[in-house]
């Protein structure tokens, strides 16, 4: 189990944290020394192995927390936002290690707000909003489930009901949602090829387009589609 914030034993060195944790789970002395050495090597902590963890950076502590969770080789590993606040290099290293661990036949239950992380690492994905599972499936299935898949975010000067109605009727457009008085999210089956038609429609309806942003099918879009845009506490 790896919590969101590091909860390491500050009175021990990195190596001792791993060996004592092995001891808590009943590993014999030789075995826990061997595993600690291997994990320190894998998590690139060997050169700091015998230093107290008090002076470690956030990324190092997070790496050590995950190494600690792996010492006793659990069948299921719980990771709560493992890469939150980490630099890109550390994040890539963690992803690589998580994938490796999964390939040895172990289950990993990971919670994250990082859609890229969920997309890259997970084989089965649940979107939870206000404590309820609102979507469940493989990342591919889920992405395919968003109406259209492509998301066009439009910003315009003046709100026009007629414009929005005609947008809805364009070929390939699956859903139009008004985001505020001066914008709309358009879910569609195509992206770039829709732009000239949207622009044409806008000028025909007397609406001035300020900004158009296209996103390809992604979990981010899926998440926003399901949960809306209001802030989550």
């Amino acid at each position, binding site marked *: 189990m790896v919590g969101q914030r590091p*909860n390491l034993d500050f009175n021990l060195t990195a190596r001792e944290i791993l060996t*004592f944790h092995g001891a808590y*789970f009943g590993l014999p002395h030789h075995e826990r020394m061997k595993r600690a050495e291997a994990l320190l090597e894998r998590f690139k902590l060997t050169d700091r192995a015998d230093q107290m963890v008090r002076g470690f950076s956030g990324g190092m502590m997070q790496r050590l927390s995950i190494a600690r969770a792996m010492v006793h080789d659990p069948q299921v590993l719980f990771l709560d936002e493992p890469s939150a606040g980490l630099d890109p290099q550390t994040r890539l290293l963690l992803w690589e290690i998580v994938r490796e661990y999964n390939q040895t036949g172990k289950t990993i239950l990971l919670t994250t707000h990082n859609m890229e992380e969920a997309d890259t690492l997970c084989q089965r994905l649940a979107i939870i909003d206000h404590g309820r599972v609102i979507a469940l499936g493989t990342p591919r299935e889920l992405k395919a489930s968003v109406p259209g898949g492509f998301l066009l975010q439009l910003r315009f000067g003046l709100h026009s009901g007629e414009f929005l109605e005609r947008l809805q009727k364009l070929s390939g457009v699956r859903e139009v949602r008004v985001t505020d008085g001066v914008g709309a999210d358009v879910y569609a089956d195509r992206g770039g090829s829709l732009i000239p038609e949207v622009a044409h429609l806008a000028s025909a309806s007397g609406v001035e387009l300020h900004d158009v942003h296209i996103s390809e099918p992604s979990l981010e879009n899926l998440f926003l589609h399901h949960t809306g845009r209001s802030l989550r506490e």
Partner: protein
Amino acid sequence: MNWKTFLAILARDAHVARRNVVALLFQTFLQPLMFVFIFGRVMVGSGYMPPSYKSLLLPGIMAICMVGTGIWAVAMPVIAEFQFTHEIEDRLLAPMDISWLAVEKVVAGTLQSLAAGLMVIPAAWLLLRPGVDLRVPHPLLFAAVALLVALFSATGGLALGCSMQQTHIGLMFSLIVAPMIFFGCTYYPWSALEKFPIMQKAVLVNPLVYASEGLRATLVPQFPHLPLLVVLAVLVIFNLLLFTAGLRWFYGKAVS
């Protein structure tokens, strides 16, 4: 119950205590031994105190060292580990019931308190000799009192540690530990309070009174002291109360 885990966590505490041994020694012994030196050696040597004060003082100093060590050894880590670093989770992840982690802390604190008690006797004896008259007529009774005092210090440490915030550590020592020592019959026997009848009755709520009087009764029984049976009974009651409260509070903090 998972004894392998329990012993491994105990080994972890021993490892950390060994690493901090020099600081621990200074913290435990420096102040009481300075007191022994000034009151037992300088004051007695210069004639302000009677020579018998040396023997009277030693059990009280032993009680201070034991209680101070046990409280410090349990309360401080508990307070620190439950703070924002959530270090306690490192041990809570171990495959063992939460309450057993509290029991482990009490065992570790008891062992440290016993070690401090056993070390302070020869140290104080060396500082005070000649003229220290330790009799110890019943070593087993002495061992029983020492064990109860050590347990009291550790269970007290657990209860205090679970009910204090980090910002209140200074207050804990000046409002609880210091009055406990001064009104704990450590530097004087309980019978010396005869001329202060209200105070003599009031100090009976202080568990340290029974610790000092119990050690006095078993180390230097030639001095007046509370009946040993009363001492043993009250220490057992205090231990049970503090242990029960400490366990409950520890559990409450751990699962919150």
